[in-house]
């Protein structure tokens, strides 16, 4: 097996594991939709057209709690502001025709960016992004449908099986290889600390943006001679 194929195989494994990790949350989202009075097609509309897990949860929760349309949309958008930063990170690897960029942009979610951006070359980044994005898209919608169909009743299964810990573990696993360089250790530390300190005080989604902004302020690219 060629070295490239070995790498690609590894990336496909990462993509499939991370999309399996989110499946219980897809079921939970479907169940939440049912509780909020949404029908099957409405729930699937959210999971395919919005396709941003935390934003979907936030918007439906606000609606279910009797919030206004405006409040639901704003809550959802605030959580998704980070995809603007993901776009900046992934854009150089997603070059192509306007149509190609327009379609692949819909996959700009945490998991696709995480798997994509942790690869070495632009072509592998694109490969990881598409694989993770598509596998999450398919499983997320399938599981939303399962959740709506089975009504609620997932209860505490996610917690009992420790599945809620698989998401941070997956993000950690993707960040890990980068942490061999001193520079990345520093900015990872800064990002983690900034996020940790802000979580209690700002709406969800903002700590992640602030962590990225903090690195912008550090201006590490000004230091010549540091490796990538």
């Amino acid at each position: 097996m060629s070295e490239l194929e070995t790498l690609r195989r590894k990336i496909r494994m990462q993509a499939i594991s991370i999309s399996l990790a989110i499946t219980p949350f897809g079921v939970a989202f479907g169940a939440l939709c049912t509780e909020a009075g949404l029908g099957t097609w409405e729930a699937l509309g959210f999971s395919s057209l919005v396709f941003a897990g935390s934003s979907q949860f936030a918007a439906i929760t606000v609606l279910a709690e009797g919030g206004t349309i405006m409040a639901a949309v704003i809550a959802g958008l605030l959580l998704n502001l980070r995809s603007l930063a993901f776009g900046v990170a992934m854009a150089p690897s997603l070059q192509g025709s306007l149509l190609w960029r327009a379609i692949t942009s819909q996959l700009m979610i945490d998991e696709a960016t995480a798997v994509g951006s942790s690869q070495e070359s632009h072509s592998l980044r694109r490969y990881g992004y598409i694989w993770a994005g598509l596998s999450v898209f398919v499983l997320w919608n399938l599981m939303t449908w399962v959740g709506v169909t089975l009504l609620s009743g997932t209860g505490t299964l996610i917690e009992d099986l420790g599945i809620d810990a698989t998401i941070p573990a997956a993000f950690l696993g993707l960040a890990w290889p980068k942490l061999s360089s001193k520079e990345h250790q520093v900015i990872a530390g800064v990002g983690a600390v900034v996020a940790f300190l802000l979580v209690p005080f700002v709406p969800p989604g903002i700590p992640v943006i602030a962590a990225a902004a903090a690195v912008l302020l550090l201006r590490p690219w000004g230091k010549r001679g540091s490796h990538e």
Partner: protein
Amino acid sequence: MSDAVVVMVALAAGTYTLKAFAPLVLSNKRVLPDWIKRFAMLLPTPLLAALVITSTITSDDQIIFDARIVGVVAAMVALAKRVPFVLVIVIAAAATALWRLIAGL
């Protein structure tokens, strides 16, 4: 149209704008300033680090320190021992579930 459909359409339009902005506006400009390219290369690291933190300590918009921390620490140990990615995920879930079972947190 139900409220949910209005929210869905507005949110879909908004999130798509955020997702597609950089790829559509920046992507084919091959002469991006150096600092933007450098920033884009470094960006994933703080983003991932922040996602690890937020997904470990928040639940339904609340800060909750619970057994997930045990799972993440277990994942860290597994990663340090060069365990494959899939197993790291399984180990994190198992450690968390076990801790909840024993400590009830």
